[in-house]
């Protein structure tokens, strides 16, 4: 009966004003928990885009698309219970009628209203703050406008750098300074307080931070008040004047002096507002009107407004819980932060300023290596209260969850250098209730239960707990917890390659390399059991090829190859093969095209340009492959390795030679790269792209290694792919010379080949790499593992030993012998191969086609493309 009442009740309407990160989290929480389908949710946002990751705003300058910042999958907004209205400004809240009205006059009635309007950037009341060239740093539009202005100035004054100034030396100000630098502008940071980041670091940390930032070429002026922004003539910014009368020349001014809650709607609606702004809410995020909740930066909770995303997320969860009938309340905010500003790590957590009575400080400061670490502990030096880390914040992930807990060791042991700090912290056993991910409020216990519930890898843990999915700073500790708990729970992590090889590919690769083994038999004798299978045999063949084991069909190796590698062609559904000649960089002469065309015509091959921009010839019988390749090799073509786990193609745009926008010769670089890496066997296929300018016509960021031309050289992106789980490549290095680029790709590929798992592409490999892209940079450019010589030698060997696989087959009768249809029938042709002619080319006949042919409704051709006669249900080749 109660069920009937439930059903009869109309759905409740929830209107959310604001479409930022916290609004997104609220909607996500509602949708994941509203099992009964009680609520319809309408989100009204004034920006022209769905909610995005504002914390990562600066990454917009390192080439990320604005869409990359979008939060949540498109499915959340496609949910029929959720409506997102973009570019929609709310102008009125009528609490009596329970209706909000937008600027366009649209009325949205509500049962529950959630204010998530966030903040606006505060601009200090200095004269000239509205001149052309003054910006704030809050939204994608702000950042895009700043970028456009700087680029315009750079084009207008190519003879000198653009001069930028940032007013505000806090977290956002340093972000903005980094953005200016990324745009190629000079930057000066002006801070009123006597040190940078006054809210997060103390004097000692501030000094170290300033030293590090000075070294990066950013000028820092602390204790300086801005008097006014100057314009010599017109409305464009030309300079600034400080309170002491000093003037400097600047072209662009970014104000980053904090944010203010956008509480004007609430004020107009008569809701209670805090002394310094913000809509007053109780511990359950309810305003003075019980139908209205406020969450995030617009809310004044426990007497404070929080300008951080973590407390905002907590409020979103609490508000959703309240609507769903839960009882949770705000536990107080964790203000811990870890940031990388201008490449400098800064972390601050717990009672960073030692305000607890009797608190003691343990400080380690080293201006030589540029690091400052401070721990705040209780008066008995037993309990960790907080800390500040500048320069090297690697200990953060391990230390932050320990706040409020006994350290169990000398505090100084946690911050002494050489990684000992991290070691000491991570060796401690975190209690289940210790918060590990503060962005998403995930405890150590939740990570452990995820493992108990069957999460078998880090990606599973991330997706089911959300730990590490926002800022990612806790990932090292999440990974350690995951691994140690798996071990402890006795969950044997079966990393075996297959039933014959008891170790993963990455370990097998090194085992084979170190033991110097060169044959399958030796490898199985030493590391495996049995005779192998279709997993370990091709994997071992692939490893031997990566290590320079000679022709893949030589001797015993031949028996290991997967069917495609075994005949150096791609098996299609009817048992015939397709043929892809290499066309380096996609550059081909008309004569070359004629050769391919004639071969396709003579053998009746279906011809198609592939997704990878190559020419693919389909429908060749196994016994036809040598004759086809003889023609191609004689005309100067070579294997395109479309069949191998190896380099496929280097896609390129036409580049500088022809294109009016190109800034480098992308075709030449693509050819050089393709000829260098051709034939390289790897855990999965490898693709590259080279674009001649930032327009990125080669779609290089969708490749394992993407190269994009700049005026000064090449930017290298790594770890991208298309396919079922598309990933944009991440920027590894900028403005590389030709030689630097090649060295970087050499090392990246060989490091990947040496350490990845079977069928693991570069994107997931990079995601699982400890330390991610930064670690990769250290390995490749700083030789952090001492491996560079080794990696270089491996690639040199590969390049030197390369030979065309097909040419060698054609020259070797023994290898040619396997290209036979039937060992005891010279005609070779499989009579079951039948084709339909469609759009003037052949395709394999389906069972349905065959039935229609038998009924006389359809004509078929055989593998020689001769018409076949159909008699009854059997098909006979017409002589």
């Amino acid at each position: 009966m109660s069920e009937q009442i439930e059903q009869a009740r109309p759905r409740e309407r929830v209107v959310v004003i604001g479409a930022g990160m916290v609004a997104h989290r609220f909607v996500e929480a509602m949708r994941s928990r509203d099992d009964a389908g009680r609520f319809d949710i309408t989100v009204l946002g004034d920006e022209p885009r769905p909610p995005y990751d504002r914390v990562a705003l600066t990454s917009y300058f390192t080439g990320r698309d604005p869409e990359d910042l979008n939060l949540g999958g498109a499915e959340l907004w496609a949910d029929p219970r959720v409506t997102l209205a973009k570019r929609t400004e709310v102008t009125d809240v009528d609490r009596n009628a329970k209706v909000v009205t937008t600027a366009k006059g649209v009325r949205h009635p509500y049962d529950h209203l959630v204010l998530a309007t966030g903040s606006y950037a505060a601009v200090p009341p200095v004269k000239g703050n509205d001149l052309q060239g003054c910006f704030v740093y809050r939204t994608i539009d702000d950042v895009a406008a700043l970028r456009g202005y700087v680029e315009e100035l750079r084009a207008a004054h190519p003879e000198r750098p653009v001069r930028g100034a940032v007013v505000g030396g806090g977290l956002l100000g340093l972000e903005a300074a980094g953005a200016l630098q990324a745009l190629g502008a000079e930057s000066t940071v002006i801070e009123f307080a006597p040190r940078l980041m006054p809210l997060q670091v103390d004097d000692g940390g501030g000094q170290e931070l300033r030293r590090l930032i000075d070294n990066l070429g950013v000028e820092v002026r602390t204790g300086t008040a801005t008097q006014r922004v100057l314009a010599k003539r017109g409305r464009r910014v030309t300079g600034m004047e400080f309170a002491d009368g000093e003037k400097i020349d600047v072209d662009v001014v970014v104000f980053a002096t904090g944010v203010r809650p956008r509480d004007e709607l609430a004020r107009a609606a008569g809701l209670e507002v805090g002394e310094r702004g913000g809509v007053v809410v109780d511990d359950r995020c309810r305003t003075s009107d019980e139908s209205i909740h406020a969450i995030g930066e617009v809310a004044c909770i426990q007497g404070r407004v929080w300008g951080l995303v973590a407390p905002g997320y907590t409020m979103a969860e609490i508000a959703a819980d309240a609507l769903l009938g839960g009882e949770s309340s705000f536990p107080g905010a964790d203000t811990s932060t870890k940031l990388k500003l201008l490449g400098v790590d800064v972390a601050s957590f717990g009672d960073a300023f030692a305000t607890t009575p009797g608190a003691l400080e343990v400080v380690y400061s080293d201006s030589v290596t540029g690091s400052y670490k401070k721990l705040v502990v209780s008066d008995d030096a037993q309990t960790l209260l907080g800390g500040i880390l500048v320069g090297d914040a690697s200990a953060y992930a391990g230390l932050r969850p320990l706040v409020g807990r006994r350290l169990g060791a000398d505090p100084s042991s946690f911050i002494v250098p050489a990684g000992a700090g991290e070691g000491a912290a991570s060796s401690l056993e975190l209690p289940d209730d210790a918060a590990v991910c503060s962005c998403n409020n995930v405890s150590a216990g939740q990570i452990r239960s995820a493992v108990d519930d069957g999460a078998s890898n880090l990606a599973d843990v991330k997706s089911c707990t959300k730990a590490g999915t926002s800022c990612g700073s806790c990932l090292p500790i999440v990974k350690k917890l995951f691994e140690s708990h798996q071990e402890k729970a006795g969950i044997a992590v079966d990393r075996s390659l297959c039933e014959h090889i008891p170790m993963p590919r990455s370990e097998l690769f090194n085992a084979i390399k170190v033991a110097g083994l060169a044959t399958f038999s030796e490898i199985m004798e030493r590391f495996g059991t049995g005779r192998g299978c279709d997993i370990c045999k091709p994997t071992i063949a692939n490893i031997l090829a990566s290590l320079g084991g000679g022709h893949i069909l030589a001797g015993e190796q031949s028996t290991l190859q997967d069917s495609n590698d075994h005949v150096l062609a791609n098996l299609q559904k009817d048992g015939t093969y397709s043929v892809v000649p290499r066309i380096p960089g996609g550059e081909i002469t008309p004569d070359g095209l004629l050769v391919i065309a004639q071969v396709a015509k003579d053998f009746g091959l279906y011809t198609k340009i592939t997704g990878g921009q190559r020419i693919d010839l389909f429908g060749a019988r196994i016994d036809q492959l040598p004759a086809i390749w003889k023609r191609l090799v004689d005309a100067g073509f070579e294997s395109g390795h479309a069949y191998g786990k190896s380099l496929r193609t280097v896609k390129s745009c036409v580049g500088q030679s022809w294109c009016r926008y190109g800034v480098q010769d992308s075709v030449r670089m693509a050819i050089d790269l393709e000829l260098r890496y051709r034939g390289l066997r790897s855990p999965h296929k490898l693709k590259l792209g080279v674009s001649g300018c930032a327009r990125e016509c080669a779609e290089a960021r969708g490749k394992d290694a993407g190269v994009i031309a700049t005026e000064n050289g090449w930017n290298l992106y790594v770890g991208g792919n298309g396919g079922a789980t598309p990933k944009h490549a991440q920027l590894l290095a900028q403005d590389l010379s030709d030689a630097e680029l090649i060295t970087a790709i050499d090392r990246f590929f060989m490091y990947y080949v040496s350490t990845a798992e079977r069928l693991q592409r570069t994107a997931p490999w990079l995601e699982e790499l400890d330390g991610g892209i930064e670690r990769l940079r250290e390995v490749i450019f700083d030789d952090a593992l001492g491996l560079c010589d080794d990696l270089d030698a491996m690639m040199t060997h590969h390049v030197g030993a390369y030979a065309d696989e097909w040419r060698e087959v054609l020259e070797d009768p023994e290898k040619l012998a396997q290209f036979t249809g039937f060992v005891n029938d010279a005609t070779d042709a499989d009579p079951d191969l039948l084709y339909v002619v469609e759009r003037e080319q052949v395709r394999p006949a389906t069972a349905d086609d065959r039935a229609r042919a038998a009924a006389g409704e359809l004509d078929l051709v055989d593998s020689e493309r001769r018409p076949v006669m159909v008699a009854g249900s059997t098909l006979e080749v017409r002589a």
Partner: protein
Amino acid sequence: MSRPSTSTESTSNVSVSNAPDLEGWTRACDADRLVPERAVAALAPDGAQVAVVRTADGRLFAVGHHDPYALANVIARGVVGTRTVADETASEKTGQEATGQERVVDVIQSPLYKQAFDLATGEDVEDRSVSLGTWAVRERDGVIELGERTSEAGHPERTTR
């Protein structure tokens, strides 16, 4: 559908002593043409396309070349190896509960959709009602010869093509 014979009853192993008459045998290829652990395709006396394999330890097998799932003649191009499977033989014969024992069987894997077929019986190790069929095969005077069909092919309810 009749169940194909099990490996112990099959004549698909080399068993020269009790071989049938020379009549009815067809030459496949020279023995040294057969690289261990890699199949070749050949035509059997009944005209069927078969995959002939010699395992690393020297045993000979002949199974159907036709992939019953993909409906294409490709089996000889698959990887040869071993697979550990649950031993259901005892329960089938005696009607008793499965023993839970495991045994290692020789398999050839379809190069298209990777099903593993038991070389001795022709059966898909994961669905023994599906089979490639088997043929008699032997080595005589340095020549590999194919004989009569020793078990029928079994087709799946659903094909992948």
